[in-house]
């Protein structure tokens, strides 16, 4: 109990019981619960103002015809028309497929590379700290910087990337464009995303690897288990929850990936790398189709939220094993 003022006992003694109780509360100041509310209230107010209110407003807008570039037109309630338009639009399904392919490939590569790096960094060797810092550098950069930086690296005539590929394959460097060819552009965004975020997966896996007690390995060695056997029977099973967590974080992030891909390819060539987040941005802030884009945002939110919930339940089951 936090006491702000000490009451005068004689004054309180002279009052009736209810009056005394009220006076004590008033004089003694705020209760623990009130103080708790006082501390939580600003956060709740912010959450309501920044998250909940816009969400509710967006749900409302998703049932309207609002287009901000034609705000002089009367606002019409269109029911589920926006949702129907989206779910029956072939282009939106293509964009979802593109996004799913990007998420699956980039997360898979990040898990494999990140886990491999974590296994390497988990060993003690000379220059260990230096290499850890170097590996972590990409994830510390802003996606805007990464997008511009890779745009230059991948430039067919002056970018070093094509020259490196040319060294190994003998293909002339300016004969292909990583961001401009339909067959290569989707892989380009996967490669760049993996370059940037594999270190993040490495960090999570490293935490998992370091949480395995040494005595388990010591016992395995006593049982003459080979390093391979130790990996399959101890290391991998005990780090699976961490890997699953990394997959969850990266999948959610990549599902809403926008900035880096927008800078690298703008969704092109054509619509080859147009992720659903780019479609959403174009609908909301370039075409100004507010009602339609609100409905699309809700569909994406429900998709990610639903998938994440199913995944978290699976993760909990793995943890309980």
């Amino acid at each position, binding site marked *: 109990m936090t006491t*702000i*003022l000490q009451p005068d006992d004689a004054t309180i003694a002279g009052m009736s019981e209810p009056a005394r109780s009220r006076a004590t509360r008033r004089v003694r100041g705020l209760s623990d619960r009130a103080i708790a509310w006082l501390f939580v209230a600003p956060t709740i107010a912010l959450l309501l103002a920044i998250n909940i209110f816009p969400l509710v407003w967006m749900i409302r807008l998703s049932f309207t*015809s609002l*287009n*901000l*570039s*034609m*705000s*002089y*037109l009367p606002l019409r309630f269109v029911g589920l028309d926006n949702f129907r338009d989206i779910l029956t639009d072939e282009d939106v399904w293509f964009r979802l497929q593109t996004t799913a392919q990007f998420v699956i490939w980039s997360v898979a590569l990040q898990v494999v590379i990140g886990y491999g790096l974590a296994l390497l960094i988990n060993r003690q060797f000379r220059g260990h700290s230096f290499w850890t810092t170097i590996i972590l550098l990409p994830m510390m950069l802003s996606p805007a910087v990464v997008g511009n930086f890779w745009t230059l690296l991948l*430039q*067919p*005539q002056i970018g070093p990337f094509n020259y490196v590929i040319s060294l190994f394959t003998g293909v002339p460097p*300016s*004969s*292909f*464009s990583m*961001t*401009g*060819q*339909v067959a290569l552009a989707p892989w380009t965004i996967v490669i760049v995303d993996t370059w940037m975020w594999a270190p993040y997966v490495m960090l999570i896996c490293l935490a998992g690897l370091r949480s395995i007690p040494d005595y388990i390995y010591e016992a395995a060695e006593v049982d003459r288990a080979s390093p391979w056997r130790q990996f399959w029977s101890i290391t991998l099973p005990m780090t699976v929850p961490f890997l699953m967590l990394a997959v969850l974080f990266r999948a959610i992030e990549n599902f809403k990936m926008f900035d880096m891909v*927008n800078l690298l*390819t*703008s*969704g*092109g*060539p*054509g*619509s*080859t790398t147009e992720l659903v987040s780019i479609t959403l941005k*174009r609908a909301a*802030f*370039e*075409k*100004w*189709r507010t009602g339609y884009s609100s409905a699309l945002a809700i569909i994406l939110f429900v998709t990610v939220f639903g998938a994440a919930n199913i995944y978290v339940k699976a993760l909990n089951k793995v943890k309980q094993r």
Partner: protein
Amino acid sequence: MRTFNCLGSSAAATVLGAALLGMFGGGEAAAQSKQLTLCWAAWDPANALVELGKDFTKQSGIEMKYEFVPWTSYADRFLNELNSHGKLCDLIIGDSQWIGGAAENKWYVKLNDFFDKEKISMDDFVPATVVGYSQWPKNSPNYWALPAMADAVGWTYRKDWFSRPEIQSAFKAKHGRDLAPPKTYDELKQIAEFFQGREIDGKKVYGAYIFTERGSEGITMGVTNALYNYGFSYDNPKKPYQMQGIVNSSDAAKGLEFYKELYKCCTAPGMTNAYMQEGLDAFKSGQVAMQMNWFAFFPGLYKDPNVGGDKIGFFVNPAGPNAHFTQLGGQGISVVATSDRKNDALAYIKWFAQPAVQQKWWQIGGYSALKAVVDAPDFPKSAAFAPQFLESMGIVKDFWAEPSYAQLLLDMQKRVHDYVVADKGTAQQALDLLVKDWTKVFKEQGKQVASQ
């Protein structure tokens, strides 16, 4: 009591602080009453406008503040500002396609009364710029902007390469005619093919640079130059919004096929998402023989120490088999309806419309649309690119300027880029899909769209 005293002191300090902030805030507002913010794109002419604006400040005592945004985010940034009724800009040099939305949504102040009062006549300006930048509805006497920056798509070429005897003779041997700036799209392609992959001064060069950008408006602003000249129109002049058979006519499809052929045969590798800046870089680095770009950049290119002066030449967008047009660029200057300084902003427009100011505007790198400037007898000799600019302004055609232009533009960006760069489908399919997209947009806008 100490706690309460502390709280009391804090509260008093906060109130006092707020009062002081209010005082300073008020002071700042008072100081800003003699300041105007002008919003535009960040490019060469904007620097010229800053120079020009110093004269306005000298005369009026009104400070000019500028908000320049790169072209790639120019529309997003300022349309968002206008949509949200922001007060960032007092004056805006908005793109020609915004005029419909700006007028219908009342983002701009209607200037008719002001023009009448100040005796500013739209007859004094180049007709294409009045229709393109000021009027809404088009061809009606309703003015929402003063033509500020006339612009169109034009071409630059390496005059020094074209004039080399060995190149000339090689071209003549191959094509049986002299190598000269192209007058038609067939000639353009022939020249581009001739230069493509040729070694000049020990360096491999490419035929042509054309717009292919996907994100904003690039490929549309490029492809329309070919489309118009092959017979494309936006709608039936006799039946507004009737696009079937017009937008996707077989001639229009041929124009689109031509643009793709030009892109495939004769551009530098990696130019899959390139617009103004990439074109300037390609030309300045001596990579291309011919470059499509906006006239606005030509003063800067002419001054370039490596490729400017005698080394650069200019030509008008070549004619096609069915017509001769070029894509209109440029912008008008408007007063933002939410501005608190409308009178000062109108004073700026009044000052800017003066012939002497317009003359200076042209001299320092802007493009005047005032007839007194461009129709002057010495105008064609005033700059190396002046004759081509003048000719181009007589054959301009603009994209839709409807309130829904952004949707129409993005649909075209998608369909054209899908076909030209991503090799998806045929030209006819791309245009058929475009008609479908545009029909949907116009129907949402409440327009009657006739199918035939």
